[in-house]
């Protein structure tokens, strides 16, 4: 075996890369769980409205960690590739079980990184529902990872002990190992650097590989669903437009656009933080949701929902839990950066609230309903 092969296919390289991937996948899993429960509240989970940019940070980390994991996974698979052809294929029952658990780990890891990368590019070549399937497969990968960590714990711990001192016969192999790891971690850092600008504005000019730029779009920021794609465009008529405040209210209310403009206006700088990992902060002006709910005689701890003019799609309605509904910065915005909203940003009225996934910042709002 050459020095290079001995180095790359060593237990130490596999253990180092495995440790990094274990940390990266756990980070993605935890931030992914947070995103899931933010969009599908259950087990009593309510999305806090503060800190304002929490979701922006967690989802930015989720996507960048996933992208940075691609070279780490490739390097890890490369380092253990000869084991695929190991003969006999297993040495004991323990070894057989451990090897069987590797299949869902590798298949699932490739699946997660590929579907995640495709999703941030809004590319869906498959027939399954992306969020549901990505979420469920994450559990399979994390379970298989737990089995793999258990099976390899003792071996990896031994392999991660100190390098041999320079000058020994093993030193050239150790040097080659360091070079291979430097390549893998360097590639990981670079793809992260070339993508992170889609959420971290100061690095936007370095975002060579990012599917979005936070400064490109109508009024200087991106759009996920356009008025035409979502079908909302056909239903927007400024002359007949009304915002209805309904549901569990003491008094049902209805406002035209001019009547909304005449109400007390509030401004806030809030981010749109997309599940695809891009985000952008803008200065919004509009009517506070809590003021509208108070005008309709709604209980100050009640939840609310908003409904869009958009006729179809999972995101035509969204729920505001009690924290979000009564936060002073939760707005039905009429203006962004002092201008009326562009059609694709939700004209005439959109929801903007702190610490909330972008898909839940409902656009073209026509109804606010107390629950």
């Amino acid at each position, binding site marked *: 075996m050459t020095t290079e092969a001995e180095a790359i296919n060593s237990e130490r390289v596999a253990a180092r890369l495995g440790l990094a991937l274990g940390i990266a996948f756990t980070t993605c899993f935890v931030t992914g769980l947070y995103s899931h429960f933010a969009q599908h509240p259950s087990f009593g989970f309510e999305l806090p409205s503060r800190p304002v940019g929490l979701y922006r940070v967690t989802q930015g980390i989720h996507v960048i960690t996933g992208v940075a994991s691609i070279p780490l996974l490739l390097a890890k698979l490369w380092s253990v590739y000869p084991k*695929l052809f190991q003969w006999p294929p297993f040495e004991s029952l323990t070894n057989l079980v451990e090897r069987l658990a590797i299949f869902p780990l*590798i298949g699932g890891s*490739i699946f997660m990184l590929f579907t995640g990368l495709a999703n941030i*590019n809004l*590319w869906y070549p498959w027939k399954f529902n992306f969020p549901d399937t990505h979420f469920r497969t994450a559990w399979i990968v994390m*379970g298989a990872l737990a089995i793999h960590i258990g099976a390899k714990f003792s071996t990896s711990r031994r392999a991660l002990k100190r390098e041999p001192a320079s000058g020994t016969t093993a030193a050239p192999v150790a040097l080659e190992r360091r070079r291979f790891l430097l390549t893998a971690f360097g590639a990981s850092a670079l793809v992260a650097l070339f993508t992170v600008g889609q959420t971290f504005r100061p690095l936007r000019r370095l975002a*060579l590989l990012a599917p979005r730029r936070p400064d490109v779009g109508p009024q200087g920021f991106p759009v996920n669903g356009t008025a035409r794609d979502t079908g909302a465009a056909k239903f927007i008529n400024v002359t007949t437009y009304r915002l209805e405040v309904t549901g569990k209210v003491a008094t049902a209310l209805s406002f035209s656009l001019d009547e909304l403009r005449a109400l007390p206006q509030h401004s806030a700088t809030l981010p749109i933080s997309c599940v695809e990992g891009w985000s952008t902060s803008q200065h919004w002006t509009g009517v506070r949701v809590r003021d509208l709910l108070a005008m309709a005689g709604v209980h100050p701890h009640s939840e609310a929902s908003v409904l869009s003019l958009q006729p179809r799609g999972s995101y035509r309605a969204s729920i505001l839990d009690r924290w979000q509904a009564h936060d002073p910065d939760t707005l039905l915005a009429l203006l962004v950066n002092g201008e009326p909203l562009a059609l694709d940003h939700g004209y005439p009225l959109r929801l903007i609230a702190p610490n909330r996934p972008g898909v839940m910042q409902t656009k073209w709002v026509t109804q606010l309903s107390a629950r």
Partner: protein
Amino acid sequence: MTDTAAGEIKQRRADRIGLGVGLLVGVPVMLVGVVGILRHPESTPIPNFLRYFVGGDILHDFLVAPIAVAISFLVLRRVPTVARAPLRAVLFGSAVVIAVAWPGIRRYGHAQVPDNHTVQPLNYATSTLTAVAVIATIAAIWLAAVLVRDRRATPESPAPTADHDT
């Protein structure tokens, strides 16, 4: 019993215990995902899911990895030893950058939402070339640093012994 044999027995026992703990934690976690998929075929059609789940692994093991082996054998072996690690970094880094940029280069996302000009707004072929150039520059600096270090470490003629004491 020799120390080696005793060590092996100890190692196998540790592996068995580790695997047992791993199975205890991992199997229920895996089941959350498996049961979720089996119970919701409307959102996760199983044949299509398996096509991607198994297909990715097969594609890697029987196409991507053999290509990497072939490149490693045909290209890296033909360059001087000192240049192999930087060249491997260029090849690996470029492959990763191209893979990450591929949906953008082919404009797959933009093709699905042609009305949305904020999706994949860059010229990703140019972006990818720029990223590859950055990687190549870093690798060239790495190679130069190794060459300079090696030259300093192996002087052409040994220094006079007396100089060591001055």
